């Protein structure tokens, strides 16, 4: 399975970007092969609105089935849900550390809209 991790840089050592829609990019990790790649999200940084859903579309295009990030907005949540992409929140540190936390089941899976208010 491919996982997209919001990142400030293009490698496993890069820091997590806590934002989803306005993340610098996504480090894509294939959990079966261990291969990583980078998907740029820079074109979204300057969008006045709708950055979250554009990012969701970008993630879907990479074939990822899960997203690891800090926070996600309600519209992006809706879009990712439609794309059947799971969302894990509360990631910290580097991309590699977030991946470990995910594998250890330490990240919260966002599965309802009840957190919408403070996203």
């Amino acid at each position, binding site marked *: 399975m491919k996982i997209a991790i919001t990142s400030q840089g293009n490698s496993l050592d890069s820091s997590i970007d806590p934002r989803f829609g306005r993340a610098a990019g996504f480090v894509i990790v294939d959990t079966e092969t261990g291969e990583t790649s980078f998907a740029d999200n820079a074109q979204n940084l300057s*969008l006045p*609105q709708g950055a979250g859903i*554009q990012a*969701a579309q970008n993630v879907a295009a990479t074939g990822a089935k899960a997203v690891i990030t800090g926070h996600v907005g309600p*519209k992006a949540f809706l879009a990712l849900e*439609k794309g059947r992409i799971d969302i894990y929140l509360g990631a910290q540190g580097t991309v590699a550390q977030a991946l470990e936390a995910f594998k250890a089941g330490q990240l919260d899976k966002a599965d309802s809209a009840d957190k919408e208010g403070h996203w």
Partner: protein
Amino acid sequence: MLTIAVASGKGGTGKTTVTANLAVWLASQNVDVAALDCDVEEPNLHLFLRPVWTKTTPENVPVPEVDEERCLGEECRKCVDLCRFKSLIMMAGSVMVFPELCHGCGLCTLACPARAIREGAREIGVVRTGATAGADSARIPVVGGEMRIGEAMAPPLILAVKRTAPASAVRLIDCPPGTSCPVIASLGGADLAVLVTEPTPFGLHDLELAVGVLRKMDIPFGVVINRDGMGDDRTHRYLEREGIPLLGTLPHSAEAAHCYSEGRLHVDALPGFREAYASIWENIRTLAAREVSR
């Protein structure tokens, strides 16, 4: 019809009280005046004018509805790529519409090769019309808009307020604060603008921004200094330096503040304010006359 927009660089300068007081003063002079509340995000002109609303009309904007059966899906993407407001995305092979982001331009409907897009409607808010209570001659038609909670598209609702308002000899528009799209929509078509400011450094900064907008839009304007005496004389000096007409000043007083907090009108309750508004109106007329002959 003389359309006068009352604006300010920021909120809380007394723009709405100036609109309400001027409207009531004009009506007392038998001037045929209507008051428009174009601050559709936080309307409050009605708190001062207390109109009886007689009609409420929902205002809609068009939004696309995609027929999944007809849509060509991933291969096409025309609508998604063309929408400059980024309100459509392609997700799991189908087009997802985010109505709150849509500006209703209709481009996606035109561009769809499969005729898969219909025009739906989304309600952005309501337009209310009514009039102040009082004797016939003093009755002021009031029109205001109220945006739906969570809605972000003020300009179409503002235009609807203007469209709905009766054609009176004088039309006073209470603009939203700031200098963004809703303000531009409120100012559009105004013959002149009255900028309300406070004589403080912050007030001056926001005034300068508003002056920039009015100059760009080529709308003649003058300034009313509210709560004059509370700050320094920098605003006065700025107006002189820039050759901007000072339409009048309203004094800073405890009574005025108290009156305001109770939602009462200065021209009704306090001595001196009627003269102040009479003089502001004289100056507005002089400015209007000068601009007509320009």
